């Protein structure tokens, strides 16, 4: 296994109030950004993902059918009027798929944001303070890690998701369960760094704990956090769709890609477009996110690609 990348920081003895070096220098960040931009697959992934998100937000404003409106055409195939066809109830599938994409993407991004913030916080406290805080937080992490995510979600959502705005609840529940891996990762990085000289120097000049954590430790774990956050988006989309497929995720009138696929399943042989379009959008979105995650990993750890 490779050693964790050494923090590229040169600690200049500085008087209090003087310029304090930031762990990840600008030059390094720019180099990483450059590597990411040159990563074709990752850039394609990012662009397609943003296009999907944009389309799901903007197109419904102009499209002639809302996702709940009944069009008077029942179970017709793709045509100029209905590019994605209609379902047996008479919904326009383009409007449905776009609404579903929006729910799925928004939920996944919410999950990634919350679980990343929480995981980083828990990992930071455990790794920085060590001792009892570390013991308690890591046992808590173990506890969450040991319960099967999907099962706990089923239990929770059976009770909670029947409320209005169910996608928000599903997102919050997912976030509650997906922070553990990152917490361990951040803790490990911090444990390795907290005894290093540049942190010792910070202690010596009297820097506060939040300052050391935010300015010096988090930047050193930023790469891992960014990669993990991206992969959490993909993971959240997969789990959320599964939950909806089982009927315990997003509830009507909201739709997401999982519920669309589930309702398209019954007619998959006769009216295949009901199944194909939401599935294609879901797979495409997840694929894009995974490409972005991989590109980020390569860009932030240049030693990886040479191996």
């Amino acid at each position, binding site marked *: *296994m490779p050693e964790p990348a050494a923090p590229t920081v040169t600690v200049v003895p500085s008087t209090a109030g003087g310029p304090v070096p930031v762990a990840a220098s600008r030059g390094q960040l720019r180099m990483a950004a450059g590597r990411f931009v040159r990563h074709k697959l990752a850039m394609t992934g990012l662009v397609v993902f943003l296009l999907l998100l944009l389309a799901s937000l903007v197109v419904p404003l102009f499209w002639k059918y809302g996702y709940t409106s009944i069009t008077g055409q029942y179970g017709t195939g793709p045509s100029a009027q209905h590019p994605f066809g209609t379902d047996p109830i008479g919904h326009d599938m383009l409007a449905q798929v776009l609404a579903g994409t929006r729910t799925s993407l928004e939920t996944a991004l919410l999950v990634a944001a919350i679980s990343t913030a929480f995981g980083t916080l828990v990992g930071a406290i455990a790794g920085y303070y060590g001792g009892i805080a570390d013991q308690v937080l890591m*046992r808590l992490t173990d506890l969450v890690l*040991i319960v*099967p995510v999907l099962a706990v979600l089923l*239990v929770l959502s059976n*009770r909670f998701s029947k409320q209005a705005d169910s996608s928000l609840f599903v997102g919050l529940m997912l976030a509650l369960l997906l922070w553990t891996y990152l917490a361990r990762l951040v803790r490990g990085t911090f444990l390795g760094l907290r005894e290093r000289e540049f942190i010792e120097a910070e202690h010596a000049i009297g820097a506060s704990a939040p300052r050391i954590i935010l300015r010096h430790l988090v930047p050193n774990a930023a790469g891992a956090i960014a990669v993990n956050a991206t992969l959490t988006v993909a993971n959240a989309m997969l789990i959320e769709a599964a939950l909806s*497929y089982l009927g315990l995720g997003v509830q009507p009138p909201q739709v997401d890609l999982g519920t669309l*696929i589930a309702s398209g399943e019954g007619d998959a042989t006769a009216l295949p477009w009901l199944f194909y379009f939401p599935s294609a959008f*879901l797979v495409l979105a997840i694929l894009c996110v*995974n490409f972005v995650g991989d590109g980020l990993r390569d860009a932030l750890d240049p030693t990886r690609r040479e191996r």
Partner: protein
Amino acid sequence: MASFLLFLLVAVSGNPLASLMANPHISPATIAAAKRELGLDQPLLVRYWDWLTRMLGGSFGTSTTGQPVGTELGTRLVVTLQMVVPSVIVAVVLAVGVGVIGAVRQYSVTDHAMTAVAYLFYSTPVFVVAILLKDFLAVDVNNAAGHTVLFTLGQNTPGTTGTLPVLTDVVEHTVLPVLTLTLITYAGWSRYQRAQLLDVLNADYIRLARAKGLSPRRVLFVHALRNALVPVVTVVAADFAVLLGGAVVTETAFGWQGMGQFLLQGLTGPVSPDTTTVQAWMMVVAAVVIVFNIIADMLYAVLDPRIRLA
């Protein structure tokens, strides 16, 4: 090892889901009575001890329908294992094979093609694969064969008798779910195997082994693969438990009456939620997770002698 025991204690004694399973529509008196009945008014340690002794005595209590949960859970576990175990075996073989080829022929056309396929399956929800196989592959195969070769619903045909017919029947029911789970799980593992092997192949001791004049085959299989398998083993062991808990999606897609369906029915059944069932389910799956983590640790020590079990 001490920390692991502590962890075990916390994980199984807390019964963290009990409060969540309480139905909001039940009056406080009923809840209190149910609490007494379930022993939830007892202190944590007492509850833990009760649970432990009861479970060691082999009893998980009865469900709301009066069935012993343990027996039912056992039956369901077998059904799920019928799906999960073959998938894991096939997926491991596939993943190691694909991973090794990808690492040895890095950046070749084969490697790129296999990477693309792995990415695709890695990004596809399990139920999408299930529906595709069910509604398209199975229909074509069955039409071509003229009769049902690949069953898309259920884990067996009730009422089949005789050793060979039963065996054939089970295999015909199992092929598609196993294929589904295999495709989904092998993708991630093969990427991991490839990365690990690439790591090892660039290590100094591999250069030494090559410099000594050992045959490439010997270097790859004896020196490199053995070391590259170590991290993969942990991932597989950890994922096995996840698969067991996550099999509910595949079970739903193929209409199997397995573990996951048992949980779903316990949650959404007529008298729901069925606390005893859900609790027992959680305990069993958590226990499986722990057992498989221990197995992973032990395999780790066997494969990598530098690691000692303290």
